[in-house]
């Protein structure tokens, strides 16, 4: 039921919202999250971020994350789109949408999907700075902690 995409180009928020909700009258709320590239990272100015992934694994990993959300909440659909390649400051990186009859499920599933995506989907970010230096972003303890919130059951 989930729509899962990995792509170079930008996603179309309105088109994705329309695709998720088209012809449906059972949805009471849609939660969404869009992650974007920040220009300042660790106090330095970013010129671009490059996203690498593990193509053979990515779609399946995203589908598993979506399936887990669907197991935990009564969702009426969800969408996960992650961009790869070179992205400049301000560019959207990731889109999460979750539709449900009630807003609590839609909003909780949205938070769950982005938390799990950040810790369980095989993407890696490399930051390129204005001073010419480049480095791979390190995983953040905060992201692990956010994902660990969901180790219990739905709620």
């Amino acid at each position, binding site marked *: 039921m989930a729509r899962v995409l990995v792509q170079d180009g930008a996603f179309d928020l309105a088109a994705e919202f329309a695709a998720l909700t088209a012809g449906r009258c059972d949805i009471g709320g849609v939660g969404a999250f869009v992650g974007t590239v920040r220009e300042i990272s660790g106090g330095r100015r970013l010129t671009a971020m490059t996203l690498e992934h*593990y193509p053979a694994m990515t779609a399946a990993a995203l589908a598993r994350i979506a399936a887990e959300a669907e197991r935990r909440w009564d969702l009426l659909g969800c969408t996960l789109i992650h961009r790869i390649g070179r992205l400049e400051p301000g560019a959207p990186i990731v889109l999460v949408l979750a539709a449900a009859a009630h807003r609590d499920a839609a909003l909780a599933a949205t938070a769950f999907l982005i938390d799990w995506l950040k810790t369980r989907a095989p993407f890696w*970010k490399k930051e390129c700075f204005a001073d010419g230096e480049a480095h791979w972003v390190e995983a953040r303890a905060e992201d692990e902690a956010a994902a660990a919130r969901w180790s219990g059951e739905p709620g």
Partner: protein
Amino acid sequence: MRARSLHILYFAWLRERLGLGEECLALPDGVDSVGTLIAWLRRRDDRYGAIFAEGRLVRCAVNQEFAGPDTPLAAGDEVAFFPPVTGG
């Protein structure tokens, strides 16, 4: 033959430090798990020794599923090594 080999993939800084994104390897004697493969690679070459010395920062997938040191390996498997993920 690929089916009798391990297919090994490296991502992000592991790929860059090795200068290698993937390789095929005839299953070495004594390698039957992720842990024994890492030990074999570390003995093979200093470059591998260097990336796996930072072992706590290296994650693994076997046949596209997250795996640990005890995950068994057999000829034909696809093994990937990478840093903790940082997408989203």
